[in-house]
């Protein structure tokens, strides 16, 4: 399965967690691989499992079944001690720039944390990292509350870069920022990727951002991978009805989306469904087989894959 150039691979990954009524499956049998140097966007709504996917790859949540490979090595069952060195190579830029920083620590403590050393001993590296993300290196002594949202996000990026990682999971890194700042951060991420040959797993719910940033897009629905392919193909020639719906819902710049045509009712009955396609209750193209059999991922053309009975 491992391609020579893939840096991260997951095979039949399944992650669930306990809720009051039993178990909720966050990631359901997902298989995909990420090539070195590319950006894979994971697109989905809240509850789709996209954040959990990122955390699972970083070994921050317990995996029920399946395997995770990093640079060809099976890291699924590695213990924390064994992960320490690997962790330097895989980092996270989290979503909320406010709860992601301990308010009692200074910027230098926050940025230097991945180096596992006293920040004053590695202050040069810290300053360097801050400069790379366009921040004034003198902010090392400041506290988080003194910085704006955009500045904080840059600090988090500086932190993610400091251990010279190869792979970074970005969890909605610009969702909480003003639009004018968002563009700055996205462009910065693109520049850094080229400079340092980084591989990104970019988690977002925003299609436009996904297309702007990513080489490939993966669509998650209720924990299942329903479509994956090159960005251009997924957006211009969407295969899965859910993908089509997502695209229709996005207002385009200079072009009014057809709001009037939009279906309002959106109730999800998939909880009462035990088998079949989880999109069945909302799908305008649902057939009998969809209720009974879960569709598998199949390749349509040119690395564009979809899990839908419309194509079987």
């Amino acid at each position, binding site marked *: 399965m491992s391609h020579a150039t893939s840096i991260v691979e997951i095979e039949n990954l399944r992650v669930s967690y306990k809720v009051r009524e039993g178990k909720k499956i966050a990631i359901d049998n997902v298989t995909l691989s990420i090539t070195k140097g590319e950006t894979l966007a994971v697109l989905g709504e809240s509850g789709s499992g996209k954040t959990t996917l990122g955390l699972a790859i970083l070994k921050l949540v317990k995996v029920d079944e399946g395997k995770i490979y990093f640079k060809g090595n099976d890291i699924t069952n590695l213990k924390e001690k064994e992960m320490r060195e690997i962790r330097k190579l895989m980092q996270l830029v989290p979503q909320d720039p406010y709860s992601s920083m301990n308010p009692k620590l200074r910027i230098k403590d926050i940025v230097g944390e991945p180096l596992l050393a006293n920040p004053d001993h590695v202050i040069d590296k810290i300053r360097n990292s801050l400069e790379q993300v366009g921040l004034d290196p003198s902010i090392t002594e400041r506290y988080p509350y003194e910085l704006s949202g955009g500045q904080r996000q840059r600090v988090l990026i500086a932190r993610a870069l400091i251990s010279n990682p190869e792979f970074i999971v970005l969890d909605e890194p610009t969702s909480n920022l003003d639009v004018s700042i968002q*563009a*700055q951060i996205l462009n910065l991420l693109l520049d850094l990727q080229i400079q340092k040959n980084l591989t990104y797993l970019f988690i977002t719910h925003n299609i436009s951002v996904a297309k702007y940033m990513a080489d490939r897009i993966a669509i998650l629905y209720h924990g299942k991978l329903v479509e994956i392919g090159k960005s251009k193909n997924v957006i211009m020639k969407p295969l899965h009805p859910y993908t089509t719906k997502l695209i229709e819902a996005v207002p385009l710049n200079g072009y009014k989306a057809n709001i009037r045509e*939009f279906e309002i009712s*959106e109730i999800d009955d998939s909880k009462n469904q035990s088998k079949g396609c989880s999109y069945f209750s909302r799908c305008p193209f649902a057939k009998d087989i969809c209720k009974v059999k879960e569709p598998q991922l199949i390749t349509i053309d040119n690395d564009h894959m979809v899990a839908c009975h419309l194509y079987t």
Partner: protein
Amino acid sequence: MSNKLLSLENLWITYYKGNKSAYAVRGVSLEVNYNQVVGIVGESGSGKSTLGHSIIGLLPNNAKVEKGKIIFEETDLAKINKSDFYRFRGKRGIFMIFQDPMTSLNPTIKVKEQLVEIIKNRPNENSVNTLSHWFIGKVNKSEIVRDEKQLIESLKKVGFRNPDEILDKYPHQLSGGERQRIMIAMAYLLKPKLLIADEPTTALDVITQAQVLKMLLELKEEYKSSIIFISHDITLVSQISDKVIVMYGGIVMEEASSEEILKNPLNPYTKGLVASIPNYFKGKGKISSIPGFPPNIFELPQGCPFNPRCNLAMSVCKSQLPKLKSIGESHSVACHLYS
């Protein structure tokens, strides 16, 4: 009779923090006609949210209208007492929906009771924290609906396939999208003349967002309500707005029809804003960003609030506030480049 439903005239609103104070809204004038959707777009520090709250009389304790008028159908809302405001809220008046409806719904009361309370004008003993207190106040004596069937109908209208189940739930048992639908259902029931929607879709996923937009559009078309749609997303706002107003640092930077503002933005800020939004329809090419950061109202620069970030800034921009000037039909811009 004039076509104007709401008219803000030279509005100045102050915020107090400790012993400091600053203007969040500086000399804003705008008009909303009957049956019109007006979008207000702005980022942090723009004053858009403050503006929205001031119209419905819900400014926090540390803010107040310093100067100017808020004329709603011939009454200046800026001059009336907080205790009298209820007369203008709710049924056939002004209604507001927020980004997170959780704070508008009392978590200890079932959905059904809360809706019933409002439509049948039966004030709840716990009414202090509920909608009826803040938005409806002492509603007009006439009932808004005759029976609960209308309640069910309105819930169906906002997309619930099983309204009976929903009525029986508590707010925390519903998702954000579901709660927002309930608020819109309330709007359908109240048929307000003016609905202020403050970032109603920011916390929602893309599909629900589109649905909310559609519902708002129906509110306008079926019930002839006017809507003030406040958001940071200019493309979103343009979807249903007749006209769009762009705010920055407390002032109106530009005002135009929704098509005009996207096709032909005049103010450098608006241009920057439009150019910085990733649009998947476009081909390759980087989005351009506006350098610098949105302002803190306690540290506003002299002159045009955007001047520190504007690559076309002239010396007059650093000293004088630009005034809104009309350029062509229904397009005005506040920028020294055009004065």
